[in-house]
């Protein structure tokens, strides 16, 4: 049930912000500070989420094969690999390290 509540709230919230952009008058969101905030908010959220999902299991910090996978993804990104190659690198390296150490 909790999962459906979370889905419902996310569906409504995400749709309304999309719609808001199309409906609000141009001046409302065009202030420099608001734009800067909108650009930086995803940076903070994505950075925190990346770190948590790679270096934690629930609420416990841990270093496991996923860290190696994320490092592989980072290398792929530095080499300007396509999106899917980046994801594949993370998955393959994580599975490989797990198979070798598990």
């Amino acid at each position: 049930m909790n999962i459906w509540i979370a889905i419902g709230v996310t569906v409504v919230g995400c749709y309304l912000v999309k719609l808001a952009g199309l409906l609000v008058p141009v001046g409302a969101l065009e202030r420099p500070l608001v734009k800067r905030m909108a650009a930086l908010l995803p940076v903070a959220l994505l950075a925190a989420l990346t770190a948590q999902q790679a270096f934690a299991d629930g609420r416990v910090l841990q270093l496991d094969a996923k860290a190696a996978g994320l490092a592989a993804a980072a290398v792929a990104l530095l080499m300007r690999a396509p999106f899917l190659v980046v994801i594949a690198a993370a998955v393959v390296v994580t599975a490989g390290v797990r198979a070798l150490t598990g």
Partner: protein
Amino acid sequence: MVRDALGVGVAVGLSGFAFGVTSAGSGLTVLQTCALSLLVFTGASQFALVGALAGGGNPFTAAAGAFFLGVRNAFYGLRLSQLLALPRAVRPFAAHWVIDETTAVSLAQPTRRSARIGFTVTGLSLYLLWNLTTLLGALGAEAIGDTDVWGLDAAGPAVFLALLAPMLRTTTERAVAAIAVVAGLGLLPVLPAGVPVLVAALAAPVVLYVEGRRSAAKRVTEAGADDDAPPNEAQNARPDEAQKGDR
């Protein structure tokens, strides 16, 4: 142009597979996973939500993280409403397709007509593929059983990193990211699940505030032009006042 739009649609649509797998691996049912892709249809928010739910967060903190990631779509909508000049009756339907990729393709077009075609083709191909591959990923994950053995739990953070990397252009973005990582990990053991991400999001206003103070101090000494300042306004006083007012 149509081939460009289709290319973007196909490439990103396939990553829906990664979402389906991640979501099913996080304990959501196939129906719940597909509902997210059909009705939310903004990838980063979906990944964030299933990640937060897997971590045991309460539904509202989990949804809050997803919501804040979706806020950027409002700014895409703003650009698109000027560019596409959609009739009011069409906007509630078009809104569902206002995401990173449709915006990128539309903004790259030279004319309004080609922007509209780009938006529609990208939106439609992405929507169909994203949902189809989500379903396949979720079914596949159920068939596999333990997705961790295949390293598929690394897909989520890798997607986030791939979305984040192009944003880290200047010191400001890197500072925000660094503070968010430290806060997100450091607070994880002490705050309820889902809350540390929201606290980490405060890195954005904190860094903006520090940056504002610095450029204000600089402006007092050199009183020069600033690229954030509106070109036809009194440049020395106004940006500082505007920033205080916003806070």
